[in-house]
């Protein structure tokens, strides 16, 4: 049986991209959409970074210096929302758009029109969210977690912020559906699941996490909205509801969200380390099972974020031990990365430097995570700067370094030009030094009792806060070098070969550099 179709459905062969703004607005091409995501993510990274600099400038000295406390609270809340939903997640979706079709030997994503829509929702949602800063009462200021009853005191910004979060969720779910549909339906002949590159595997599992938990966040904020405007009392004790229930629902979303932001990073690192070690990845199948185990465990650890609300001893023990259990599959991964490097023919190009820094610094974030999992200790650490140091180690030299490593690794494939290696290494060293200057002292002020989310603090915390602020400016300005490097590479440079890196393996390296507008018109056969 066959069907007659118009050539508008299949017009790949005879044209390249459209010209001007229409190319970007109407594009259904996975590479164009990947570029849009990455460009958007970089923009949001600088917007969120500016907010972080406002926070760190205020904290350079005790007392109130440059912003009033309410604006400070808006900055902490918006910094998190922008960095999580605007910078880290879109960067991974951008990388998935660029790479998943090329890695599985597909011509494009399975649902190209939906792909366009998934992206273009984002700038609209973030414009809405950022404009709330100019509304009466300012933007959301109750933290990115939006705990009631505090969040219900938000001014005119509240419904706009809730609407923006719904849109972000819809965009993420559509992106996840597209990735799963692509992996399940468009793999090249011979590419079984256990032959897929690790980046594809980690994204497949991440996409399932997104589908499972983004609706939970949407449900939670819908209930906040109805509590505020439609007289329901889901989270209000006055009507029989329970504000702690919100925290349970939020963290049922929030903890898997942490893994949504780190599993694709594991995938990137698992591509880069074998290339520059010139060895196959050690323990491929254990990497896949470890990723799946981490994803499963992420659903049963949520209450470790809220030990201090009070819960039965059995609950405390369950969430403590289940959280500690995550160290096992994560340890398997770290072991495998080190075993891959062991006796490898190592070279230290910029992507490899960022990947090694990832392994070391992410592990520091993992260790402080295990410390926080210990219930009695967590009651001491809760809501201190120790927590801020912990999750920033996981997310900045963790997720962000992996993204940067991935960009350096695949940039020659995308642009057809090599980036400036000398400047890349300078970017690496500046970033690595300053990220530690920025976040390491926060462990000490946290252990000494400095609470998070306050614009003022006791005098004994001055020195570490000043060091941290110097680190923040250093790290922030170092990223301008990254921007310059990317622009320079897009505009020209030494021509890249198809293989780009001597030890690189995988279907994407069989395509010419830059990769053609439509990759794999005819699917390759995988042996």
């Amino acid at each position, binding site marked *: *049986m*066959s*069907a*007659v*179709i*118009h*050539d508008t459905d*299949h017009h790949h062969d005879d044209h390249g991209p459209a010209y001007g703004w229409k190319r970007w607005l109407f594009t259904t091409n996975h590479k164009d959409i990947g570029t849009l995501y990455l460009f958007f993510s970089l923009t949001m990274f600088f917007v969120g970074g500016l907010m972080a600099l406002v926070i760190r400038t205020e904290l350079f000295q005790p007392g109130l210096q440059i912003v009033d406390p309410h604006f400070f609270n808006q900055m902490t809340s918006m910094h998190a929302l922008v960095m999580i939903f605007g910078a880290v997640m879109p960067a991974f979706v951008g990388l998935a758009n660029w790479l998943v079709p090329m890695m599985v030997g597909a011509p494009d994503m*399975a*649902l190209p029109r*939906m792909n366009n829509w998934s992206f273009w929702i984002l700038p609209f949602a973030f414009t809405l969210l950022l404009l709330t800063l100019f509304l009466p009462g300012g933007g959301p200021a109750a933290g990115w977690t939006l705990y009631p009853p505090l969040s219900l005191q938000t001014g005119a910004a509240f419904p706009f912020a809730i609407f923006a979060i719904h849109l972000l969720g819809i965009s993420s*779910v559509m992106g*996840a*559906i*597209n990735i*799963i*549909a692509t992996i*399940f*339906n*468009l793999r090249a002949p011979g590419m079984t699941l256990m032959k897929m590159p690790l980046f594809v595997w980690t994204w497949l599992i991440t996409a399932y996490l997104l*589908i*499972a*938990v*983004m*609706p*939970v966040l*949407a*449900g*939670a904020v*819908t*209930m906040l909205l109805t509590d505020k405007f439609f007289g329901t*009392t*889901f989270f209000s004790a006055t*009507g*029989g*509801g*329970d504000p702690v*229930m919100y925290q349970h*629902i939020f963290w049922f979303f929030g903890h898997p969200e942490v893994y949504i932001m780190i599993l694709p990073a594991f995938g990137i690192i698992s591509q880069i380390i074998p290339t520059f070690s010139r060895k196959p990845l050690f323990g491929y199948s254990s990497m896949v099972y470890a990723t799946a185990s981490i994803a499963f465990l992420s659903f049963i650890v949520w209450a470790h974020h809220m030990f201090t609300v009070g819960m039965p001893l059995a609950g405390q023990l369950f969430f403590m031990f289940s959280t500690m259990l995550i160290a096992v599959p994560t340890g398997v991964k770290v072991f495998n990365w080190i075993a891959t490097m062991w006796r490898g023919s190592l070279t230290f190009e910029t992507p490899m430097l960022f990947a090694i820094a990832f392994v070391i610094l992410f592990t520091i974030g993992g260790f402080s995570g295990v410390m926080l999992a210990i219930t009695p200790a967590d009651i001491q650490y809760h809501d201190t700067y120790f927590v801020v140091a912990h999750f920033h180690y996981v997310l900045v030299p963790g997720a962000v370094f992996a993204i940067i490593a991935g960009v350096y690794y695949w940039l020659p494939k995308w642009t057809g030009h090599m980036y400036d290696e000398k400047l890349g290494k300078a970017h690496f060293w500046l970033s690595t030094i300053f990220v530690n200057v920025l976040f390491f002292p926060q462990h000490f002020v946290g252990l000494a009792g400095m609470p998070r989310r306050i614009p003022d603090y006791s005098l004994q915390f001055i020195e570490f806060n000043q060091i941290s602020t110097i680190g923040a400016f250093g790290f922030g300005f170092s990223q301008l070098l990254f921007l310059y490097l990317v622009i320079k590479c897009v505009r020209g440079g030494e021509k890249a070969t198809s293989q780009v890196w001597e030890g690189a393996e995988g279907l994407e390296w069989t395509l010419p550099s830059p990769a053609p507008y439509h990759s794999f018109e005819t699917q390759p056969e995988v042996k």
Partner: protein
Amino acid sequence: MTRTRTTEEQARRRGIIRTATLLALLALGFYIAFILVTAASN
């Protein structure tokens, strides 16, 4: 200009639509279920 979609292409297209529909329903189901469960627990 028109072209005939092969049987293999049609099967793949059906697979994509089936996968996407199931996943979208799953997401919608989670959204509704969490609101209903929260309402019932109060």
